[in-house]
C-alpha cells in the first residue's frame, strides 16, 4: 500500500482508531494483522518470504541467547546466511547471472550460464532483511535479549509504517515499545499528524513534480546535453531527498500517532559541509546499520591506514550494492567511498581555512562554499544512482558541460528554454518545481537549531491553522498526481 493513496487514507484512521479502542493485550495482534494487510496489498504471496525470515530469526535469536561459545556464532551465521540467501536469490541472482554472461561473452569462452529467472523483487526486501538481521546480531552481541513472543517479534519486522522503506530499526529501540501501553494523547497525535502532512507535501508536491523532469532527461539521456543534464541531476537530488525523507516522515508520523518512536532518518543532508557529515544526515538508519554491523566488524578505523581506507571503501561498495542489483549502484557506492577517503586528505586544508576565517561573513562564505561543494559531489554521484545503465551514466558525465559556453546566448531562444531547460514541460510546472525547492531549503534553513514542528507549535493557533490549510491545499491542488506515485526506495 502506498502512503500517498486513497487506500492509505482509509486504512490509517481505521487501524489507528481500532488500535486505541482495543484492550492492550490485543493491540499487537491488530497491528500485526494490519501490517500483513498493508504488505499484501502489493503482492500477497511475498508475505511468505517475510514469514520465512521471521521464523528463522525468531528461532535463531532464542538459540543464540541460550547457547555459548562457537555454537552462538554458528546460529548467527545460519541466520545471516538465511537472510542474505533470500536477498541474494530475489535481488541479485539475475544480476549476477547477467554479469557472468557478459563476462563469458567478452572473454569469448562460450560456456553456457544458468538461465535467468522470471522473479519479481519483493517490495522492501532489503529493508526488512536488514531489520531482521540487526535483531540476531544484537542478540549475539548481548545488547538485547531474544524476543520469546513470536507475534511481537513478527511485528518488529513487519510494523507497517517502516516495513517497506525503513527506517531500519534496532530491536532495543522498538521491541519494548510494542509491549508498552500507549495512550491517546492529543499533543502527540497532533505532532504525528504534522509530520505526516509535511512528508506528504515533500512527496507529492516536490518529489513527484521533479520526477516528471528527471524522467524526461534520464529515460532518454542521449537526446540531452549540458544544462539539461545538470538541471535533471540537481532536480533528482531534491526528488530523491523529498521522496525518501517524505516517506520517512510519514512513517515516523504515523508511528508517533499510535505512540511509537522510530529513529530519525534524515537531518537536512544538503546542508552538510562535508561528505562524512552528509552520511551522518542521509538515510541515517542505513548508514548506522553499515557502520555498526559491517564497518566496525571489519575493524573500523582502529587498523592501519590502508586497511582503514579499505574498510571505508568496501562498506560503501556494499551499501551501493544494497541499493540495487545494477553496476550503477555499485559505482555510486564506490564513488562515495572514494569521496570519503579523498576528504580525509583535504581535511587539513579545510581546517586551515576555518581557523583563518575571523569575521562572521568569512565563516558564512566558507560554510557556503563547503555546502555547495559537498552538494556538487553528491549530485555527481547521483548521476550513477539515477541513470538506467552504466552507459547512460557515463554519457551524462561526458556531456555534462557541453554547450555551457553558449548558454548565455541560448537562454534567449524560446525553443532552447522550452526543450533544454524546461525539458518540454509546462512553464508553471517548472516554476512550481523551483518554488518547491526554494521552500524546502527555506524551511530547512529555519530549522538550524530546532525542529520545524517546535517552531510551528510556538506560533498562535491562527498561524498554525493557516499553515495547515496552506500545506493541505498545496498537497491537494499543487500535488503532481498525474506523475509517478511510487516511492523510489520501494524498489530496494
Amino acid at each position, binding site marked *: 500500500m502506498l502512503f500517498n493513496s*486513497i487506500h492509505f487514507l482509509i486504512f490509517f484512521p481505521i487501524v489507528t482508531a481500532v488500535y*486505541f*479502542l*482495543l*484492550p*492492550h493485550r490485543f493491540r499487537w495482534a491488530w497491528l500485526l494483522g494490519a501490517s500483513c494487510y498493508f504488505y499484501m496489498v502489493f503482492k500477497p504471496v511475498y508475505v511468505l518470504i517475510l514469514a520465512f525470515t521471521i521464523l528463522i530469526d525468531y528461532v535463531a535469536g532464542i538459540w543464540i541467547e541460550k547457547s555459548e561459545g562457537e555454537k552462538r556464532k554458528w546460529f548467527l551465521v545460519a541466520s545471516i546466511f538465511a537472510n542474505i540467501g533470500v536477498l541474494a536469490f530475489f535481488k541479485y541472482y539475475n544480476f549476477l547471472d547477467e554479469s557472468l554472461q557478459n563476462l563469458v561473452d567478452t572473454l569469448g569462452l562460450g560456456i553456457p550460464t544458468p538461465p535467468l529467472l522470471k522473479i519479481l523483487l519483493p517490495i522492501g526486501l532489503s529493508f526488512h532483511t536488514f531489520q531482521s538481521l540487526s535483531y540476531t546480531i544484537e542478540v549475539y552481541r548481548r545488547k538485547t535479549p531474544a524476543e520469546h513472543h513470536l507475534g511481537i517479534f513478527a511485528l518488529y519486522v513487519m510494523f507497517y509504517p517502516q516495513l517497506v522503506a525503513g527506517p531500519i530499526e534496532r530491536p532495543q529501540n522498538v521491541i519494548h515499545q510494542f509491549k508498552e501501553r500507549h*495512550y*491517546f*494523547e*492529543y499533543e502527540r*497525535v*497532533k505532532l504525528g499528524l504534522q509530520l505526516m502532512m509535511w512528508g506528504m507535501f515533500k512527496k507529492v508536491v516536490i518529489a513527484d513534480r521533479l520526477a516528471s523532469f528527471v524522467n524526461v532527461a534520464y529515460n*532518454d539521456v542521449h*537526446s540531452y546535453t549540458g544544462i539539461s543534464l545538470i538541471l535533471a541531476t540537481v532536480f533528482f537530488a531534491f526528488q530523491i531527498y523529498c521522496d525518501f525523507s517524505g516517506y520517512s516522515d510519514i512513517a515516523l508520523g504515523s508511528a508517533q500517532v499510535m505512540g511509537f518512536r522510530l529513529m530519525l532518518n534524515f537531518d537536512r543532508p544538503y546542508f552538510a559541509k562535508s561528505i562524512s557529515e552528509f552520511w551522518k544526515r542521509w538515510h541515517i538508519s542505513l548508514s548506522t546499520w553499515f557502520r555498526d554491523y559491517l564497518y566496525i566488524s571489519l575493524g573500523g578505523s582502529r587498523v592501519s591506514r590502508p586497511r582503514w581506507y579499505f574498510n571505508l571503501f568496501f562498506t560503501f561498495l556494499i551499501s551501493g550494492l544494497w541499493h540495487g542489483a545494477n553496476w550503477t549502484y555499485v559505482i555510486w557506492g564506490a564513488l562515495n567511498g572514494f569521496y570519503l577517503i579523498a576528504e580525509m586528505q583535504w581535511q587539513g586544508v579545510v581546517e586551515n581555512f576555518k581557523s583563518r576565517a575571523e569575521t562572521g561573513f568569512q565563516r558564512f562564505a566558507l560554510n557556503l562554499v563547503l555546502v555547495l561543494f559537498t552538494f556538487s559531489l553528491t549530485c555527481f554521484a547521483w548521476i550513477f544512482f539515477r541513470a538506467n545503465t552504466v552507459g547512460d551514466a557515463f554519457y551524462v558525465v561526458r556531456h555534462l558541460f557541453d554547450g555551457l559556453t553558449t548558454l548565455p546566448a541560448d537562454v534567449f531562444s*524560446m*525553443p532552447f528554454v*522550452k*526543450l533544454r531547460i524546461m525539458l*518540454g*514541460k509546462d512553464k508553471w510546472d517548472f516554476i512550481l518545481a523551483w518554488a518547491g525547492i526554494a521552500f524546502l531549503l527555506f524551511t530547512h534553513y529555519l530549522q538550524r537549531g530546532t525542529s520545524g514542528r517546535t517552531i510551528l507549535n510556538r506560533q498562535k493557533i491562527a498561524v498554525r*491553522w493557516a499553515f*495547515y*490549510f496552506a500545506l*493541505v491545499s498545496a498537497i*491537494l*491542488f499543487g*500535488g503532481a*498526481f*498525474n506523475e509517478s506515485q511510487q516511492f523510489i526506495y520501494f524498489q530496494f
Partner: protein
Amino acid sequence: MNHSNLFIFNSEKRDVVKLTVRLAWFGLPFLLAALFILIIDPFDFFEAAGVIPDEIKRPIAMQLNPPLWKLNRFEKDPKEFILLGDSRMAPLETEVIKEVSGEDYANLGYGGASVREIIETFWIIVKKTPPKKVFIGVNLEKYNDYEVTNRVSSYAAIHENPAIYFVDHGVWEAAYYNIRGYWGKAKFTLGTPNMTREEFWQEDLKTWGLYYKKYAEPKKYRQDLLEISKYCRKNGIELKFIIFPAHIDAQKLITDAGFQTQNEALHRDLTACGDVYDFNWANDLTENENNFLDPVHVNQETRRVIITEVWKNDLKYGKLLFYAPQ
C-alpha cells in the same frame, strides 16, 4: 486515570473528542469544496447533479480540456469508428460522415492537440473497445517532438483515481467559468481579434511560422506511430491518416523555413504506418482564401469536400498515398 467503556480512559476520551472536532472543522472547507465540484461537475464526470446546463458546460469544457470532456463521453458511449487529431479534425461533422459512409464515428480531435495526445488517446480507446477504423489527422507543425502538450494524462489520472477530479486545476477553472456563465450569464467565448481579416491572416501566419522555429525531429512520435500501426495490423484495425489542407500561404512557410526534407519525412513516416489522404498541396482548393477560416483551418464547405473525398473515396483535391511499410 478513570476507565471509561471501550478500554479507553476518560482523559483519552477528551483528547479523542478534541481531535475529532478540530479535524472536522479543518476538513469542512475541503469537504465543501468537493461538494461544490460535485454539484457543478464541469466535465459531467459524475453526472450527479444537472445544475449547470449542457450548453454552458460544453463550450467551456471543450476550450479548457477537450480530452477530459470527449473521453469521458466516449467512456459512456464508445464507438468503433474513431477520428483523432487536432483543431483541423475536431470540427469534422460525424453526422455528415455517417450520412456519407454509414459509419458512426466518435470525433476525439482536440483543439491544440499534440501528437502525444493523439497517441495516448489511441491507447485509451483500444483499452475500452477495439475499434474497426481509425483516422488520424497529422500535419507537419505538430509532427514535432517539441510539441509535448498532454492533457490526456489528466483524463487518464482522473479515470484511474476519480478523487483527482476534485483537485484538478482545469476542473476548478471550468467550474469558475460555469458559475460565471450560469449566474452572470457571461458567455465563454474566444475573444474576436480587433483587426481585419487580412491583418488576422498575416498575424496567424506568423504564429504558425513559429512552429518551424520550435522544431525537434519527431523520433519519439515516429516510433509511437509505428507501434500503433503494428498494433492495428495485428488486431485488424484499419488505420488511415489525413494531412489536412493549409492555404498556400501556410504551405509556403514550410519552404521558407527550409523544411521540405522534414515534410517528405512526414509523408514517408505516415505511409509507413497506413494509407494517407494528403490535401496539403498546391491546388484550386488550397489557393483560394475563401475556403479557409484562417491559413490552416478550412471552412464548413471545405470540410464537407474533405469528408466526401475521404469517405466516398471520390478524390479530387486529396491524394491517396498507399501504405508502404519500410
